[in-house]
């Protein structure tokens, strides 16, 4: 290894203090595309979850920053487009890849991440979590290399383990009704490798206010 590579690595270690400067309260707000880019994130939830809504929030952030996001999911149960439009998303510039199984979803993600053109790649895996480790390793590496956020949406409770140890950040989303058609969607961090938060640790929280879909407003 050349001396300059050694020097670069030393520089990265010195920069590591940046990541430890945690802002655990929500006013620090680490749930931001700029902070999450380059990471493999799993967003999960069960009955009262709001995973699609929080994914839409990140897509909107990307679009507001004039970046392109892509959605990869299954043909049988995609998101409902009028709700995405009501969340402030430009549907025409949100490419959606509709496939049949988790492996195909992962292969498509590989092709899209490799291009470096997408700031956010959403994999809507649902309840099926059979993503091979080798594929996850490749996808996590590509996300880091291209500074893209790889966001996997899964349907599981917080007690069920993450997709794998490669997941850099695992969060659970819960939805709480506030009355008058308003809902608070809260992202509770379960695991954050960069901030040293584990299952026993106190994870930070991020909250957003949403209105209900048509009929619930």
């Amino acid at each position, binding site marked *: 290894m050349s001396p*300059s590579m050694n*020097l*670069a690595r030393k*520089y990265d270690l010195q*920069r590591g203090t940046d990541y430890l400067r945690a*802002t655990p309260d929500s*006013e620090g*707000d680490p749930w931001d595309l700029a902070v999450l880019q380059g990471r493999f994130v799993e967003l999960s939830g*069960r*009955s*009262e979850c709001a995973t699609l*809504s929080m*994914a*839409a929030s990140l897509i*909107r952030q*990307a*679009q*507001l920053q*004039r*970046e392109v996001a892509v959605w990869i999911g299954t043909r*049988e*149960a995609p*998101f*409902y487009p*009028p*709700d995405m*439009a*009501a*969340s402030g998303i430009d*549907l*025409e*510039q*949100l*490419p*959606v*890849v*509709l*496939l049949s199984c988790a492996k195909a979803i992962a292969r*498509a993600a590989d092709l899209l991440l490799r*291009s470096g*053109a997408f*700031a956010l790649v959403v994999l809507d895996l649902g309840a099926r979590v059979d993503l091979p480790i080798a594929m996850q390793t490749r996808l996590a590496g590509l996300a880091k290399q291209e500074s893209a956020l790889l966001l996997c949406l899964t349907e599981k409770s917080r007690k069920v383990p993450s997709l794998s140890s490669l997941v850099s950040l695992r969060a659970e989303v*819960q*939805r*709480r*009704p506030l*009355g*008058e058609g308003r809902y*608070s*969607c809260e992202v509770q961090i379960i695991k954050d490798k960069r901030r040293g938060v584990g299952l026993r640790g106190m994870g930070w929280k*991020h*909250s*957003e*206010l949403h*209105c*209900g*879909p*048509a*009929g*619930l407003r």
Partner: protein
Amino acid sequence: MDRLACVDLPFLPLQILLRREQSWRSCPAAVVESDAPQAFILSVNRIARRLGVLPGMRYAAALGLARELRAAVVSASEIEQCVQEVVGELRNFSPGVEPSEDEPGVFWIDARGLDRLIPSYEEWGRSIQERLQQQDLLATVVVGFSHFGTYAAARFQESGASASSRRGRLQVFGESQDEFTQVQKTPLAQLRIDPATRDTFAKLGVKTVADLLSLPAAGVRQRFGEDLGLLLKLARRSQDIPFAGQKPCLPLRRELLFDDGIDRVDHLLQAVEQELLPLLEQLEESGQVLASLTLDLLFERSEAIQELIRMAEPTLEAGRILGLVFLRFEGLKLAEGVIEMGVEVQGVRATQRQGELFEVRPARSLSAGNRALARVQARFGNGSVVHAVLHDGHLPEATFRWQSCSRIEIPEPPSVRLPSLVRRCYTPALVLAPRARHEPDGWLLGGAEAGSVTRFVGPYILAGGWWARALHREYYYAETSKGAIYWVYYDRSRRRWFLQGVVS
């Protein structure tokens, strides 16, 4: 003559870096242009300079001279934030503050009419320096009569002194002639002149402002351009730039009176939302983004409560702001009803990263994205890469269709007051098992884990098509005890329940 002060924060990016990393003050430290080993060094502190590290070197080369060299990038948004912070501090000394557009770290303060309010300009200048020192910033203050004169005097150093030894100075010119005399001694190397022009001047033996003033103005303008022509005019005092203070971002406030008092947190939140959205629109119109929100809650008997919510990054996104308000109110215990509430928003100027006006971010290639989508389409078949197109339809499945996505462009998302929750839509809708006549555990729509249905919202009836195939669907939202919300409908013609989707 009108008085003016120039406040110069030398090497502002380096000062910001050392303020951020206090432990680096005793180490060699540098600001680099990017986070890479071959990045150029932009400025260095004294310790690094003594070890031979100079601006213009590459970081990797500098590490060879100073093994303990610490370096980091200081972003444009950090610099802008610091500039606005300094403007805020300087406004305590005069309402007119003008930050330099070309050189962050240089400010002019309008000192007209202050001679009757302040004991002396020396004390005034010293107070400015002390105030900035409390923010860990070092500044040189020069009180004079013109933009250029005070700026050149702030930049002036005795010959032989190194740039890094430039400490905060205070200088007050009693007469404009004194200012002019000082300006003439200023070396051109200490002013912001194009390096190539400066080198040309050096070859011609033009090294100070006095040498520059001896040149014919028309010739300078013709050979070196209008910018240098203007500089010559300013140096000759034949022209000064009119003071253009930055308008302060005044807070916007709304007051609400509640006749019956509000003692429920969710009602308070609704009231905040109602007042906040128009305030955000006002901020947007004036080119600002929200930096902080102050909520004042007044009671009849109890003590008033003030909550200050600061945004990590200024924004106009109502959903995020209200999310923070909700988290703050969550732990609030109201002993009695709120009779009056004040909502005050403080904005800051939108930088290029904030608000709705974004410049194109570099680095991502749309054509590479289009090629990747084409590869996915080729791999998985036509119809695998689509985008949604909305239609005016009654049935949920008729309100949109998937259309082949041939190419992508820069997105232009619409603005929304509050984002909506998104439903997952099953196509086709899933047939549910018939409901038993008796349901001792309630209707377990999503299984035992999701809990039994506790509430129905609806019906929303969609009926028609009598001329072809009659259709009658009664849509409901079924909420369960565990908080799940299912989107279901009862099809009268088929006498079956269907699961159209779920709110997620």
